[in-house]
């Protein structure tokens, strides 16, 4: 039911858009019609570089999130072991989290140039801090009794991490990854637009930017569409799937 309502809302928007374009009220030089966008998307997939560009962007995001995730888990573990360290990390997160990735670009360019590495650094900056903040909240939320039970049943440090800490803070870790995923896209698109094609084809951000140069308004909007579609797909299917198999099944979902 909920899903149907969402779909109905999307269709209604699409219909309004089509009516607006067909009636001539939306100037195609300002905003393209749905048909133009569909055509541009089809062209991009069949003749153009769109699949390559999507893969390029996803690869960078995947790497950025993987690095952020590993860093957050290692840092999270160190925070649980040493309370002093946890306080330092909490302060650093508060300080650096609000810093826009774009503001770091000049520094990153001086360090590593303008290649893929620079984009990944910007993505990690966008994703890691909100993720870390959630991991810290997650650690703070773990009921002490789980560790007491773990001690009683002779859990090793590794078991305490993988069998207690991570599942017990799963709702926070998943929420953190959701924010990280959204922030990673923002970081990626801005970095791509500034760096240009840091690779053979460049990514979605570069595709949108290039479309502007050619006054290809349908191209710009189809780029935006792709970002939204990937966003919704991952939110519904990847995160939805993980939540159903973990926190919802365990009765821990908020």
């Amino acid at each position, binding site marked *: 039911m909920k899903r149907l309502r969402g779909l109905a809302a999307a269709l209604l928007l699409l219909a309004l858009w089509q009516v607006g374009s067909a009636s001539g009220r939306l100037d195609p030089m300002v905003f393209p019609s749905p048909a133009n966008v569909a055509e541009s998307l089809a062209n991009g997939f069949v003749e153009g570089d769109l699949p390559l560009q999507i893969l390029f962007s996803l690869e960078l995001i995947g790497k950025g999130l993987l690095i952020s995730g590993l860093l957050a888990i290692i840092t999270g573990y160190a925070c649980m072991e040493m309370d002093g360290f946890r306080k330092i990390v909490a302060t650093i997160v508060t300080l650096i989290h609000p810093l826009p990735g774009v503001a770091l670009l000049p520094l990153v360019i001086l360090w590593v140039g303008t290649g893929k590495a620079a984009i990944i650094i910007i993505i990690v900056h966008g994703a890691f801090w909100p993720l870390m903040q959630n991991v810290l909240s997650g650690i703070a939320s773990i*009921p002490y*009794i*789980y560790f*007491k*039970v773990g*001690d*009683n*049943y*002779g859990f090793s440090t590794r078991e305490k991490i993988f*069998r*207690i800490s991570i*599942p*017990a803070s*799963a709702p926070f870790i998943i929420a953190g990854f959701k924010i990280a995923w959204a922030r990673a896209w923002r970081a990626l698109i801005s970095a791509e637009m500034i760096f240009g094609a840091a690779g053979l084809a460049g990514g979605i951000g570069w595709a949108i930017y290039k479309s502007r140069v050619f006054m290809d308004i349908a191209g710009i909007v189809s780029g935006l569409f792709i970002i939204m579609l990937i966003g919704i797909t991952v939110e519904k299917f990847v995160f939805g799937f993980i939540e159903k198999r*973990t926190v919802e*099944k*365990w*009765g*821990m979902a908020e």
Partner: protein
Amino acid sequence: MNTALQAINITKKYFKDGKPRFILRDFSMEVQKGEIISILGASGCGKTTALNVIGGFEKIDSGQVLLHGEKIKAPSFSMIMVFQDSHQLFPWFDLHDNIAMPVKKRHKKKPKAFYEKKACDMLEQVGLEGYGNYYPHELSGGMRQRGAIARALASEPDLILMDEPFANVDAITRDSLQDLLLGIWKDKGLTVVFVTHDIEEALYISDRILIMGKESGKVKRIAKNEWKGLRKTKEDYFDEKERIKNEIMA
């Protein structure tokens, strides 16, 4: 009789406004193999701390705890605690996996069938057969406590420590959990240290009752109990209940 556990002159204190306050003071007790002994007292009397000390969960200032003559320094499989908290089962394991967990850890080299069977046996023992694939959040408070008892039994400890395990369930469920404990005790010959503030509960389940007073964590009396397994059947039951109550509140 065969002494399982000795707590000898245990003192635990903290400092408040520069003065020492005693949580436990010269606390001593012995637990015989095969008995259920209750530690009975009002809230704040130090009974939970005493249990935590026995289990190795808390440090003490002086004294020692000996299990079969060996000094206890940390929690281990030999004494398993059943808590009051109905969230002591891991929510991310189903009931079966919660119970199989200690079996797997204790018998690392045994085949899967061994701990599968053990978990099923334990579920049956506590009256939860058929609930193995339920997650803790899908069970009632009483069922979760049964699950926690099954997990403790599955660990084959020398001693089971119970910290007001039935305090959070309704009266009818509490009666049936007490009967369950007595049933298993008859069946398997458990050794249990049971902390409670409920005099009737202590009278119903215990072989002996250790009565703690309100102040300084001192043992008032260790009484042999004649009412185990009986509910208010003799007239002097109420005299005994009244007497214990006065001791607790004094």
